[in-house]
């Protein structure tokens, strides 16, 4: 496996003197005005290009807390959760049941768009960071990602099982993962978070979220976008197949006919 550390740069912008109105207008920043600490993060690129032999990697996000109280820092009062969330997709969970001896998909529940991937790193396990209610209100943690069923769900008694199955399968596929010790302070206000990119990472618009907690209370959240694109011939083929399906099909047939014809020429018994 290529443990490529994809691009990172320390961003030490230690002067977030933005007017309060501007902060509210910016959806990528949420601030609890009770506190004066501010968090900032940076990655050196807003696009990650994945080649066809990609088998997973770690990205490192650097960040800093501005206005940190050193005494509180020393007593581990600050906690940071960094996550990488994939593009949202409508997702259906199906359940097989035995019907006349055969296993058949019987029940299904459709969920409102959920992150296709979710990779989280934190300074310690989530239950030590804040209350589950607070974490759930911000969709932090695999068990707190909101899974809202849509359409007919029958009597609704099965929703819990389906939610659990969805989380279990996403984790088994490596799409949802967590590292409760992945965020580390490297100086008194600087931290480094390593977030895992699974091999099957979905392409599209991802977002990096960094959330700061102080003694269990929410201080600030910051988001930055990150595009994941695939490169090379494979990506060209994928795009061509999806944008020009008919031409792609004609080409596939042409290639097959050519291969068949050439082989009959090569192996012709004369």
């Amino acid at each position, binding site marked *: 496996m290529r443990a490529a550390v994809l691009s990172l740069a320390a961003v030490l912008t230690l002067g977030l003197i933005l007017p309060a109105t501007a902060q509210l207008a910016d959806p990528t920043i949420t601030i609890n005005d009770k506190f004066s600490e501010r968090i900032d993060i940076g990655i050196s690129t807003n696009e990650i290009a994945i080649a066809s*032999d990609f088998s997973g990697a770690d990205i490192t996000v650097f960040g800093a807390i501005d206005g940190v109280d050193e005494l509180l820092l020393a007593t581990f009062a600050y906690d940071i959760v960094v996550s990488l969330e994939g593009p949202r997709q409508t997702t259906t969970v199906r359940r097989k049941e035995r019907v006349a001896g055969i296993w058949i998909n019987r029940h299904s529940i459709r969920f409102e768009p959920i992150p296709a991937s979710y990779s989280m790193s934190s300074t310690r396990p989530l239950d030590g960071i804040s209350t589950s209610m607070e974490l759930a209100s911000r969709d932090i943690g695999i068990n707190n990602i909101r899974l809202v069923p849509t359409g007919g769900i029958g009597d609704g008694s099965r929703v819990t099982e389906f939610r659990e*199955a969805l989380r279990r*399968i996403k984790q088994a596929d490596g799409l949802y993962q967590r590292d409760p010790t992945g965020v580390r302070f490297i100086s008194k206000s600087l931290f480094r978070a390593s977030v895992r990119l699974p091999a099957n990472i979905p392409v599209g618009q991802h977002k990096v979220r960094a959330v700061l907690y102080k003694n269990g209370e929410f201080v600030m959240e910051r988001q930055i976008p990150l595009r994941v694109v695939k490169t090379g011939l494979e990506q060209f083929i994928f795009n061509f197949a999806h944008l020009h399906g008919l031409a792609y099909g004609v080409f596939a047939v042409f290639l097959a006919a050519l291969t068949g014809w050439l*082989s009959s020429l090569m192996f012709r018994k004369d």
Partner: protein
Amino acid sequence: MTIYLPIAELSVNIFVILGMGAAVGFLSGMFGVGGGFLITPLLIFYNIPPAVAVATGANQVVASSVSGALAHFRRGTLDIKLGLVLLAGGLVGATLGIQIFTMLRRLGQLDLIISLLYVLFLGSVGSLMLWESVKALRRAARNQSVSMRKPGQHNWVHRLPFKMRFKRSKLYLSVIPVILLGFAIGILTSVMGVGGGFIMVPAMIYLLRIPTNVVIGTSLFQIIFVTAYTTIVQAATNYSVDIVLAWLLMIAGVIGAQYGVRVGQKMRGEQLRAGLALLVLAVAIRLGFGLVLPPDEVYSVVSGSFGF
């Protein structure tokens, strides 16, 4: 060495795919079948999403049937007129089949129906072939003559109207059963990703009484166009043709087929048919187990393109 399949959206071992293609090519050369009915289940066993396996299987069959049909054309064992009538039915069937395929995918029952159809068709064709070839082998052991076709014997098929003369096949036959056969095979091509030779050849010999020497060439001729049509429509509607996967299978397949043909020529017809019957039954049994055994995970998640 792994290679990323752009449409199936997963990485596979290139040697496994080439090995699969070569093995199926060898068997198809040896037994004179297209091999689609082996490729598609093998791809599904190797975790290729069934939707991609079916569409890609159809694409791969184009190559093997072009190669085969050209050989028959040169030998003059191809009835183009009969092939065109079959094809007319086949194209209509394939169009309907793709509608069925898309609908099943939306309902989440595509995997089930593909497996059921394979178990049903491979199971029954395999059993019939095994029974017939064992009888033939016994007769051969007792030095009796073996004849596949009983000329001059007519059945209900030959009393149907709209008759047409097929010179190459030396037949005067109603077009209705021919079109219906093409239609049925067309549906199977688009739903199962097979050429359908394993059903069409026996049906042409036993049901329509078409001379055995033109049957294989003519069915290959029809298969080229129906699988080509299916590939194009699958690509345009379901985006499920993986050209990288298909091409690897074709290359390995056409090479494997050459060796298969040589081995096949050294074996007796009834031995070949018995071997093919056992192979067909083995695939049917393996797929049947998959339907009956309790799955490791009863839940499945569908999001994005082929996540099932």
